């Protein structure tokens, strides 16, 4: 089952003002994959997403998306940022945020076509947000904002969907529904979801990438000791695995460590 790669990251290094965030990272994201990107805070997960999006340029190494440079390919990527609370007081409705996903740089003048509106409404409907389409973004809750941003990513008709901590402001019950929805989307779209909560995502994803300056890719969604060490580097070998088992993942086996 060799599917064609959508993203090829080759030996990429990136530093912020001399502080290395990512070192020698390589990763191939294949079509149809559903990757959880996990790792400690400050481990470079968001940086890696921004490199894939072309918002940052690697200091060393090459990233190609759909065989093109990241700048050219960025329009094929749907992106849901981590911070959905930017500009809460901005005068914009949920509908207009979603319509931003239909932005075509060559088309100017303020004009909203009926077909774009229909498409935006359908995306909102898919996320059960249709009734709130004309609400101002500042009046929505965190979870509702998140859905609006996902709808905005979906109307771009992406081949690849990148979500940065999408469940941060959704409750536990909502999280399960949310990941079910992503799983359904995954039939057509390759998905990378950043999370620092491996347990929440492990039963939905197909593979796991551990990012902590370096990157380790696991071709299946199984929790290994190495992952736990990447996740919780200071508590390796302590009682945390027991805790994890107690929280219940009956079908998964933890390696000894």
């Amino acid at each position: 089952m060799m599917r064609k790669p959508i993203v090829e990251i080759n030996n990429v290094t990136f530093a912020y003002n001399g502080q290395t965030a990512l070192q020698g990272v390589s990763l191939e994201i294949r079509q149809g994959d559903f990757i959880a990107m996990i790792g400690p805070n400050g481990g470079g997960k968001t940086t890696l997403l921004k490199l894939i999006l072309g918002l940052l340029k690697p200091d060393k190494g090459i990233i190609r998306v759909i065989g093109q440079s990241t700048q050219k390919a960025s329009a094929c990527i749907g992106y849901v940022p981590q911070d959905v609370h930017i500009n809460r007081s901005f005068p914009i409705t949920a509908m207009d945020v979603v319509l931003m996903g239909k932005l075509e740089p060559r088309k100017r003048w303020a004009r909203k076509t009926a077909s774009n509106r229909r498409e935006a409404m359908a995306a909102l409907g898919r996320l059960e947000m249709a009734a709130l389409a004309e609400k101002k973004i500042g009046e929505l809750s965190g979870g509702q904002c998140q859905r609006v941003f996902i709808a905005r990513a979906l109307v771009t008709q992406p081949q690849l969907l990148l979500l940065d901590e999408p469940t941060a402001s959704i409750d536990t019950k909502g999280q399960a529904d949310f990941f079910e929805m992503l799983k359904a989307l995954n039939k057509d779209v390759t998905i990378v979801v950043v999370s620092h909560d491996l347990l929440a995502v492990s039963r939905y994803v197909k593979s796991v990438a551990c990012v902590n300056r370096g990157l380790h890719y696991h071709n299946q969604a199984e929790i290994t000791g190495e992952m736990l060490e990447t996740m919780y580097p200071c508590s390796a070998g302590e009682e945390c695995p027991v805790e994890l088992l107690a929280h219940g993942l009956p079908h998964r086996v933890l390696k000894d460590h």
Partner: protein
Amino acid sequence: MIEALQFEFMRHALMAGLLASVICGIMGTLVVVNRIVFLSGGIAHAAYGGIGLAFFFGWPYLPGTIGFALAAAMLMAAISIKAKHRADTIIGVIWALGMAFGIILIDLTPGYNVDLMSYLFGSILTVPGSNLLIMLVMGILITILVAFYYKDLLAMSYDEEFARIRGVPVKGLYFGLIGILAVTIVLVIQVVGLILVIALLTIPPFIVEKHAKSLLQMMVGSSLLGALFTVVGLWLSYRYDLTSGAAIIMVAGIVFMISFLIKRKRILPRTKDQSAAAETRNTADS
């Protein structure tokens, strides 16, 4: 008010105030949502350096001032992109330097000197017809440009990263916005003064922002509100013999504080009907 309009200077003052309100309503909306109020203040003050230069070398007033303001604005824009966290400090330095540079050059210029007060508060009561024409052309130009780039400006102002991903030329657009802003500020300052420009750029958009559901609504609302402040302020200045620019700003400031207090009191978010009602009220008032 009607009797005041018999005088040509009052009609000119009213026209100038209304044009400034519309120009500042459009540009001020973009200034407020992009959080470049401080940068605008920097441009407005640094532009005084251009006036000094024009006087000292005997250049024509407008090209000299606009050139200097544009250069200062581009420098500030570049810094605010490159070094986001230090931008406010450096803008503060350029702000002060530009002003001091202008004043010293005017000191060194022999003969008749411009008065700093008229730069600060303008002379809306002595606006010549030619300046009205310049403002009218400027207003039309700004409206066309903003309409043309509306969607890009909206995306950039709301979520710059997303705009870049969608292929909006964010950098060019940002420099363009600041460039137009510099030209606007210089042109409007000569008519209504620096202080009134900053007031009209910030106060109406800030009040309207909470009630508007789109940038367009915010621009229209700010223009109408600015016009209302201008009319009331001019009437007060005529009736009670007050400095016109200051009177307009006082009216704006009082409404600003009232709206601020109302906002503090209200805990629940506004419902749709209330904001619609507020919109109609604003429109009806002006």
